[in-house]
């Protein structure tokens, strides 16, 4: 039994933590929250220089070719630090979509630019509130031209390229769906930044009006390609969520030990102790589910969809619970802008919705259980 990260992977994690504890403090996050930009361009540059963006990209496409376990440990640290950089959009979504559906030529063209940090990429599915379903995808891809609108696209304001889910044949539903790669700096693309809950993760609406786009993968496979991208991103994002949830527990614990009320530290009241114990339980369950996801991702196991849904649901629940109860443990001061608690509360919701809500992942999880038990 060897269900743990290796010593080398743990060393990489320590290095990442050390770097981020200096370069991505909550002051960095606060500066982004209070500034005009939705990310820290200097931090992004340094992260790319260290090669983190190319961690799991094969060497032949300009990456470090390390692997997904290494990417998972970095993801956890980015999540702990609430790093305000377009890492998840570029690495978990854009690069993974290329690796899954891209032609050799497309991989050769774009992946080295991801690895070097030259470009920011993103992934766009949703076109309105409610569930994302094949029949709701109205954006069309015809003769290399993209038309339509995608909403709340993560890092949509700063991304150079987006991979979007589009319909190639109106009324065809899933059978007509295909992924398309579009240059967001090109003509026919209009983007408008949106006000979002988590100001350290920018989102934008994208409108395509005859924008030039190249197909990625086959027509008719867009839906399943997108699902595979989301599965992989969900596992990586689960590590960010677990990292964030652990920080919330540590913040709550630290505050409770040092805050006195009724003549004693509030950490000595069972109402607080049991709350923190519950946080610990949620966090450990989420960590274990995320580890299983990491194993599936790193071995390319056929259990990836089930592992992804479990990691996603578990990590979302843990981060939600830890971030809200961290505020509760702090009392009134926890609700102020001046404290850092709200950054985590908002990041928990952003990470919990950006790849689709828990409700959808729970349904998918049970579908996977039904097929695996059949």
């Amino acid at each position, binding site marked *: *039994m*060897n*269900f*743990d*990260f*290796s010593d080398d992977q743990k060393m990489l994690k320590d290095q990442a933590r050390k770097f981020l504890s200096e370069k991505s403090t909550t002051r960095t996050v606060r500066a982004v929250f209070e500034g005009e930009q939705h990310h820290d361009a200097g931090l992004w540059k340094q992260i790319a220089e260290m090669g983190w963006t190319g961690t799991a990209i094969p060497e032949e496409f300009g990456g470090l070719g390390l692997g997904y*376990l290494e990417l998972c440990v970095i993801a956890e640290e980015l999540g702990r630090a609430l790093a305000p950089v377009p890492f998840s959009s570029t690495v978990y979504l854009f690069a993974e979509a290329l690796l899954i559906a891209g032609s050799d030529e497309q991989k050769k063209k774009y992946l080295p630019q991801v690895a070097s940090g030259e470009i920011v990429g993103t992934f766009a599915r949703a076109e309105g509130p409610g569930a994302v379903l094949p029949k709701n995808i109205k954006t069309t891809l015809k003769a290399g031209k993209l038309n339509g609108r995608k909403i709340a696209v993560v890092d949509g304001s700063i991304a150079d390229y987006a991979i979007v889910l589009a319909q190639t044949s109106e009324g065809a539903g899933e059978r007509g769906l295909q992924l398309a790669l579009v240059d967001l700096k090109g003509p026919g693309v209009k983007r408008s930044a949106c006000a979002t809950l988590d100001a350290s993760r920018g989102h934008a609406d994208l409108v395509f009006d005859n924008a030039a786009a190249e197909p990625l993968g086959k027509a008719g496979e867009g839906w399943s390609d997108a699902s595979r991208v989301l599965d992989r991103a969900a596992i990586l994002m689960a590590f960010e969520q677990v990292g964030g949830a652990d920080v919330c*527990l540590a913040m709550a*614990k630290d505050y*409770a*030990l040092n805050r006195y009320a009724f003549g*004693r*530290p509030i*950490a*000595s009241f*069972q109402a*607080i*102790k*049991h709350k*923190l*114990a*519950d946080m*610990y*339980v949620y966090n*450990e*369950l*989420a*960590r*274990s*589910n995320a*580890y*299983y996801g*990491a*194993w599936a991702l*790193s*071995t390319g196991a056929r259990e990836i969809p089930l592992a992804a*849904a*479990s990691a996603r*649901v*578990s990590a979302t*629940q843990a981060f939600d619970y830890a971030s809200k109860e961290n505020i509760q443990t702090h009392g009134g001061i926890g609700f102020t802008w001046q404290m850092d608690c709200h950054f985590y509360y908002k990041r928990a919701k952003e990470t919990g919705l950006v790849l689709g809500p828990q*409700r959808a*992942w*729970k*349904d998918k*999880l*049970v579908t996977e*259980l*039904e097929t695996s*038990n059949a």
Partner: protein
Amino acid sequence: MDFEDSPAEAAFRKEVRAWLDANAAKRTGRKQIDPEDLENGSAGEMAASKAWQKVKAKAGYARITWPKGMGGLGGTPMQSIIFGQEESKYDVANGGPFAIGLGMCIPTLMAYGDEEAKKRFVWPAVQGDEIWCQLFSEPAGGSDVANLRTKAEKNADGTWTINGSKIWTTGAQFSDYGIILTRTDPNVPKHKGLTMFYIDMKDPGVDIRPIKQASGGSGFNEIFFTDVKVKDSQRLGEVGQGWTVALTTLMHERLAVGGGTGGGLDVPQLMALARSLELEDGPAIKNAAVREKIADWYVRSAGLRYTTMRTMTALSQGKQPGPEASIAKIVVASKLQDISAFAMELEGEAGILMGAEAPVGGAFQGGWLSAPGLRIAGGTDEILRNIIAERVLGLPGDIRVDKDVPFNKIPTGR
């Protein structure tokens, strides 16, 4: 990262399989869930349990981590886990009645008993000839175990006389011996006046009465002690040091009781039920609320399964496991209660029935009836949360108003 055995573990597994093939029959099909078994252990299978225990003890498989010559192999915790995994695939009565004695009482005896006692008691317990129980809890002391009142008074000839009562004692009705925590000095604060002994459960002064539980079963007992004489050599640890001795036992209890499996009622059983039932809007398995619940419980089950694998990994690498194993019982007990209640909700009015008349032979009703006990036995959900808060997270203990008060001056309430 992988789930494979190390070469040494694989070799041990092979050895174990060969031994099991030679000594037992493979289990065919899934073991039927008997609601009675959830709380009563395998009391009905006593003879089979004893016979199988003897076979294992001869081979050193009864207590793998114990030293050779004491019924063990001097093996690793991982080897013990591997044996358990393989043994569960065979049709054998594996150890229900011996868990408390071998998991808690005998380790305490080994730590505090004299050489003669060890020579006399360890081997008969290992091979299942003698069964032990643990006599700590009392009507006045459940979570607050140290609040116990059973008295041991020293006689002029150096022997001791025990009077009082104990409660919630699992397996007392078929036990030969027990370890008992008593109060030897009521004039000092409660933790300081305790002393541990072992006693003969067949003594005429020991009166064992089964407790009928809310579920109808009787897994526990109440026991009355009237002038039970014990020799001073039956004392475990110094006079007044009983609490320290008890902590040794309770540390073993946490390992022995562990998470349990929730009686084999989990997501697969709930899904099977949901597939078989029709709700207002169609098949239960297609109902969004049902699916959401299934997913919630699945991530808890899977999370625990992989947490166990993290613990096993530490053991496999010869490291001390992290504190994450402490979450198991809290998760399992309430999940059993919630899954069972939800399943009965799906069964509708038929959910009121129990036993053979009920859907799935009353499995969920059995789980629901036993769950409240599981949330209390071996540390209540609340005590377990305190343990996580204090020992894992390092939060302060509760303020104890009885800490420096002599035991006989502590308010007792009703």
